[in-house]
């Protein structure tokens, strides 16, 4: 490895080291407060290194900035990773989510039944994030696959950490389905490799344009068609997209809530990042783009509709949020389906992917606010049914406020970030000649209003059996508050994130050069 390689990988290396340091701190001090503190403050190392890669302050990136004006280091390690701005955007997102998760689980790992395993808990979260950081910058199929496994395996242990019946069930379900989806994914990769003779995304793109095409077959060949379907299926599990969603409600109910919050945001963002990179870099030819756009459009419609319909009848708040995240994945898929190749008129060509990134970031803040509020509430009430939230407004006004705000944002009420994100994504669908999909999305938003408002009604209007007031633990409250403020700020000033996303997009070559 050259110095250049180290710079490109520096955020991932820092994160891996932090995971090892955290588990050692637990070993030496046995103090969970110290573990949380070290992990939280330690996150500044990968954060600074990521900022450095974006701005080119010092080291190799500084020279790169001097030469090109952009601190883009290009690829490293024989083209297996590329820490471009697209990857860095997701690095920032992942680091934010991780910081929130560590803050929100500080009290949880110090609790009686977790205090002996808190270091391992945090360390596994950090290892999973390491996998994600590599995953979002990987540009080669084998690296993508191995990084994907590193993101999933720690989560299996985290989901089953309580070893209660529900915990073991959720861990086992996640493990088995994750293994099956990996197998499907690998089959897809194998077909692509067999057809193009390369595992490098950029080379795959080159070869696909040169290799003979079968006219009339989508993607120009049956092998590529099947491979794309299998790759989408494999990542569909991670994105929690119908029909690979059945693990979501069980895992969400059985796993500890901090793990669920992490899972629902971080793994989803990483999966969307890598699927966009594969699709745009390897299958970014305009003709191919139109083919997979149709595939994602159908998936989006089915996912939104099924997620929302099933959420209607839920009585457990964590299960309800599980189905809600499935529906949200459907909305995000609308942005993935809105490809530049179908653009109508002279609108910004990257609107679809840009919408996906904006939606993911907004959704991350919103969902974290909701989950952290739920953590704070259920840790006091010991009840995760929706009735358990009755009269919350009187019992804990602050938490009730955060939760209601988060739910309104998930629902898509102006002026929250959820509303702006839906506007951007559905707008990009209309621009990409997918008006029917935008209509389906809007109808789904109306359906979703029913179950989100049901929870809000319980919080605001119902009377509680037990009227005792309570307040939340400080760290969770801070995490929930910051997440909620983030959701508010990015809703009121969407250009902050949209501009950031647009800069990150300019790296995806197909969008700029292909059209």
């Amino acid at each position: 490895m050259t110095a250049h390689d180290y710079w490109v990988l520096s955020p991932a290396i820092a994160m891996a080291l932090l995971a090892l340091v955290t588990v050692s701190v637990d070993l030496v001090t046995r103090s969970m407060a110290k573990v949380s503190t070290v992990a939280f403050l330690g996150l500044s190392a990968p954060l600074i290194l990521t900022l450095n890669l974006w701005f080119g302050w010092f080291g190799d990136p500084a020279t790169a900035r001097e030469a090109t004006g952009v601190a883009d280091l290009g690829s490293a390690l024989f083209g297996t990773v590329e820490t471009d701005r697209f990857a860095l955007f997701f690095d920032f997102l992942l680091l934010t989510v991780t910081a929130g998760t560590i803050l929100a689980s500080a009290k949880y790992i110090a609790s009686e039944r977790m205090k002996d395993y808190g270091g391992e808990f945090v360390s596994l979260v950090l290892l999973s994030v390491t996998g994600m950081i590599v995953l979002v910058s990987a540009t080669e199929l084998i690296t993508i696959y191995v990084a994907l496994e590193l993101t999933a395996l720690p989560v299996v242990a985290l989901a089953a950490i309580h070893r209660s019946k529900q915990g073991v069930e959720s861990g086992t379900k996640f493990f088995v389905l994750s293994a099956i989806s990996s197998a499907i994914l690998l089959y897809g990769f194998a077909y692509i490799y067999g057809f193009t003779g390369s595992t490098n995304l950029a080379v795959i793109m080159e070869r696909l344009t040169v290799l003979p095409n079968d006219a009339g077959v989508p993607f120009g060949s049956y092998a590529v068609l099947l491979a794309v379907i299998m790759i989408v299926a494999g990542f569909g599990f991670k994105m929690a997209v119908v029909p690979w969603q059945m693990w979501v409600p069980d895992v969400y109910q059985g796993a500890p809530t901090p793990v669920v919050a992490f899972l629902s945001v971080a793994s989803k963002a990483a999966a969307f990042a890598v699927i966009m990179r594969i699709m745009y870099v390897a299958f970014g030819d305009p003709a191919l783009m139109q083919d997979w756009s149709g595939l994602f459009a159908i998936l989006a419609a089915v996912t939104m509709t099924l997620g929302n319909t099933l959420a209607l009848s839920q009585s457990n708040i964590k299960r309800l949020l599980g189905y809600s995240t499935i529906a949200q994945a459907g909305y995000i898929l609308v942005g993935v389906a809105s490809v530049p190749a179908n653009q109508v008129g002279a609108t910004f060509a990257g609107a679809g992917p840009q919408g996906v990134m904006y939606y993911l970031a907004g959704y991350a803040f919103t969902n974290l606010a909701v989950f952290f509020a739920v953590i704070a509430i259920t840790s006091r009430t010991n009840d995760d049914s929706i009735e358990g939230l009755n009269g919350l407004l009187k019992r804990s006004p602050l938490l009730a406020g955060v939760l209601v705000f988060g739910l309104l944002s998930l629902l898509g009420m102006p002026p929250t970030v959820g509303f702006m994100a839906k506007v951007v994504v559905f707008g990009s669908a209309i621009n990409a000649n997918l008006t029917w999909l935008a209509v389906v999305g809007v109808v789904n938003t109306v359906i979703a209003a029913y179950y989100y408002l049901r929870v809000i009604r319980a919080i605001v209007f119902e009377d509680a059996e037990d009227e005792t007031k309570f307040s939340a633990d400080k760290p969770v409250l801070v995490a929930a508050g910051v997440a909620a403020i983030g959701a508010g700020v990015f809703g009121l000033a969407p250009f902050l994130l949209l501009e950031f996303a647009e800069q990150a997009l300019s790296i995806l070559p197909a969008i700029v050069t292909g059209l």
Partner: protein
Amino acid sequence: MTPVMEVSALTTIAFWAASAMTLGFAAIVVTQRDVFRAAIALAGSFLGVGILYFVLSAEFVGVVQILVYVGAISVLMAFAVMFIQDIASGSRPAQGRLVGVAAAVLVFAALAFTAYNTEWSSQNELSPDAVVALTEGYYEVGEGDDIRVELTEPAGDNDVVVANGGAFVESTGAVGVLLVREYMLAFEIIGLLLVAALIGGLLLMRNPPSSNKTEKGDASV
């Protein structure tokens, strides 16, 4: 399209025999009620796959397959099966057998259809010389940026000559070089993956705290 390599009769026989072995044992695994016998049959199926790798000239992968799967994993499974108490009663007959068979047939149809209806690039991309180089080895001649590949050792002694075994002749060496060059990152990540597996395994194998038994759900989190 001409095939890349002349396939000898012996290779053909080995291929079909190994395939029959793999599929036959796999069928036993699926249908056998006794878990222990199923585990043994699975080892047989693994062995068949290992032979297929040898037929494809991937000796290294073949040896690893036999060492790891036929050797270690099968023994591990045998131990796991012995630790399960109700071993005599066997596994319950699978439910939804018809659905399973239908799904398997469908998947096979899709894969086979694709394999037959695709013009695989390897069939027309490799020149005969490249095939010879890959199967019988080659020589790298020249220095610096000016390196050319020759199939026979050049007579002149001015150029630096590096003898190369070729990917199919020396697959072990080729795999080793790939692991520390192109796929170095993946190799390193597997190290982290093992750390994660170790920590996760320890976490799940701990003695359950006694308070766990009385707890109703995980609502308290």
